């Protein structure tokens, strides 16, 4: 491939959308040495060595996904950083955050460095680990957060493991606040959620599935919002699933707390009725809730209470889902469907193209103060080019992730990535 990093390139004729800078027009974008150097007109003396024709396509910043699991280290038999970052680039994603619940757990500098080095070796999407909030994620002792941040962890999180002891949680948040380290919290009351596999409501009642109440999320969220207020920490609440959670976050934001939130693409498009035929790909945590909850999440995103959409990518082997619903491993393969699922919000006439792209670029980047998610002059040329009008079928064969566990199998969706660039290098291109 003629893929020298320093190559002077022009992307011509595309609709450039850069929400961070309020740009949405058909124009040219220029980069050199892996950095964006100009928009509209070439800088003096710039002679493009390559011109990428983006006519009819959207040119936007590479997508930023705040939650994706690669299964490496520890579960390479399911998927690897190389396989999943490749799938991510096919989805237009150039920057990923990964939870600390790998094996080994990212609760020490050596583990953080290991994972960062492996991602560098794969050299596809940027891969940013989050560190464990507590040692071994056990919720007993707080981790070496300052050292973990120094090693490259952009935030601290306890992954799927709630910190049950409120005193430990308070101290962890206090310590993070001391060093101005943001924390990511997925609010779950472990007692209320124990053994559950579906939203506790009409459908679970019919199917005889163990339910998980809304309150399993809202009670934990209420506690943690109080602790955020108490400690002043910057907190990001991950994968909200209930209408009431959206109200609680909005209220906290109104009170001036440093609180943000995200939602998964599947919670925006699916609800409890999608579990009604025991389709194990619909077994996700938090569970798919009511239609009212689903609508409230979309509205919350539209209003800006929720600022990012994430894939919550969790690849599984086929066998992990080829079992009865309650026994199936929870989670979806999501990096390749993130963009079309968010673009679907545009077609439903609720979002502008700019709104949709902001939820996947500038807004998630801003939460953690990342330099990504924009096409500003001088920034790295991380770029996603996609055809907004092209349809494709979501099938196991069309997914390159090693996890084929998409809840959207069989859907025909619009929006197809044709090229992904990281620092000006083509890391994905349709053949």
């Amino acid at each position, binding site marked *: 491939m003629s893929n020298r990093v320093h190559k002077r390139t022009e992307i011509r004729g595309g609709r450039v959308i850069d929400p961070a800078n309020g740009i949405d027009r058909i124009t040219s974008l220029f980069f050199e040495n892996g950095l964006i150097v100009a928009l509209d007109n070439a800088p003096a003396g710039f002679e493009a060595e390559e011109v990428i024709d983006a006519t009819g396509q959207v040119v936007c910043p590479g997508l930023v996904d705040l939650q994706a699991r690669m299964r490496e280290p520890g579960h390479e038999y399911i998927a690897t950083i190389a396989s999943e970052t490749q799938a991510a680039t096919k989805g237009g994603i150039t920057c990923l955050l990964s939870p600390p619940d790998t094996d080994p757990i990212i609760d020490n500098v050596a583990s953080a460095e290991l994972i960062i080095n492996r991602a560098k070796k794969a050299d596809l999407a940027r891969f940013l680990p989050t560190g464990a909030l507590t040692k071994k994620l056990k919720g007993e002792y707080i981790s070496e957060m300052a050292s973990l941040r120094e090693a490259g962890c952009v935030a601290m999180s306890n992954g799927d493991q709630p910190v049950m002891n409120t005193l430990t949680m308070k101290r962890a948040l206090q310590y993070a606040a001391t060093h101005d380290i943001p924390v990511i919290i997925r609010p779950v009351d472990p007692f209320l959620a124990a053994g559950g596999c579906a939203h506790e409501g009409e459908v679970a009642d019919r199917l005889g*599935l163990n339910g998980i109440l809304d309150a399993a999320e809202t009670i934990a969220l209420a506690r943690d919002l109080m602790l955020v207020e108490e400690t002043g920490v910057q907190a990001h609440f991950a994968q909200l699933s209930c209408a009431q959670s959206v109200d609680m976050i909005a209220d906290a934001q109104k009170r001036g707390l440093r609180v943000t939130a995200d939602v998964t693409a599947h919670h925006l498009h699916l609800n409890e009725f999608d579990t009604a035929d025991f389709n194990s790909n619909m077994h996700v945590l938090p569970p798919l809730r009511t239609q009212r909850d689903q609508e409230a999440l979309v509205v919350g995103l539209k209003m800006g209470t929720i600022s990012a959409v994430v894939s919550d990518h969790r690849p599984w082997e086929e066998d992990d889902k080829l079992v*009865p619903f309650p026994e199936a491993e929870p989670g979806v393969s999501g990096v390749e469907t993130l963009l079309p699922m968010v673009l679907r919000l545009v077609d439903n006439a609720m979002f502008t193209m700019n709104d949709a792209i902001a939820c996947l670029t500038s807004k998630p980047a801003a939460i953690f103060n990342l330099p990504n998610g924009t096409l500003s002059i001088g920034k790295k040329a991380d770029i996603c080019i996609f055809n907004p009008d092209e349809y494709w079928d979501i099938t196991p064969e069309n997914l390159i992730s090693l996890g084929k566990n998409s809840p959207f199998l069989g859907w025909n969706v619009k929006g197809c990535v044709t090229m992904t660039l990281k620092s000006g290098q083509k890391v994905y291109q349709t053949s």
Partner: protein
Amino acid sequence: MIRNVLQLNAEKQLKHFLSMEGLKRHHLIEILDTADFFMDYERNRVKKVPLLKDQTIVNLFFEPSTRTRMTFEQAAKSLGANVMNLNISTSSAKKGETLLDTLHNIEAMGADMFVVRHQESGAAHFIAQHTAPGIPVLNAGDGRHSHPTQGMLDMMTIRHFKKEFGPLKVAIVGDIMHSRVARSQIHALTTLEVTEVRVVGPQTLLPSEVEKLGVHVHHDLKSGLDDVDVVIMLRLQNERMDGALIPSEREYFKLYGLTEETLKYAKDDAIVMHPGPINRGVEMDSPVVDGDRSVILQQVTFGIAVRMAVMCLVMGVRPLEMNHE
């Protein structure tokens, strides 16, 4: 919903029997009429009606059961079929074999029908989705979800004693939340359009939105039993109670136990049913179990006829349409 399509063939006739949901009144009536046909044979002391001669029916039980398995076995043998029993809880699940591997292995042995019991809700649907075409699956109980043959034998019992479903008021008392039997009964009763279905129990034993299944909720036994024609008591499933859902069996019996005294709130000719096994002195007082209103043993007898009926229907065998001399 998709899962309802799963158990019907292109002619909308039963090809698996997984759940009551999605079945129409005429499906249920056909099962009941066919079961009545087998009861007539039974009364005439004809032990075998070899309609499924040389077919192999496999009882695939992932959850321990003696009684249900025996009635399925009895039904299969009465139809002249061969029966294989496989108790997986003590077999391959412990050896790490996946459910699908087990299934395909037994298919390879030449199974013509599966009878499945499994501890997880949705397991019978899962198996029906993965068996070879033309091999019916009968759900003999999956988790808390469904136990449709039990539901049908209960309907047969009710029809036998009450003749018409339309005017009936039915109370189901006890642990609705953990009961696949209750779910099947509720769907069957609403499909057969009885006047009223009530569930009676403390909130801790009721599904959160149970009224959406089309039932009335009562927390008080007396109001729940008031003027009903049928009382169905459920077993208090101790083995399923992983939390403190009731304070004690003593208090449960005091509030929800059926005694000759509390039975007076029901109609004078109300019948009392129980899917078994009974905890005497917990759900029901012994005099009621053994009393003249109790039809619990008749339920068991009807169970074999219902299972024979379902086995025939899913195999496309319709004895009512045949010429009998």
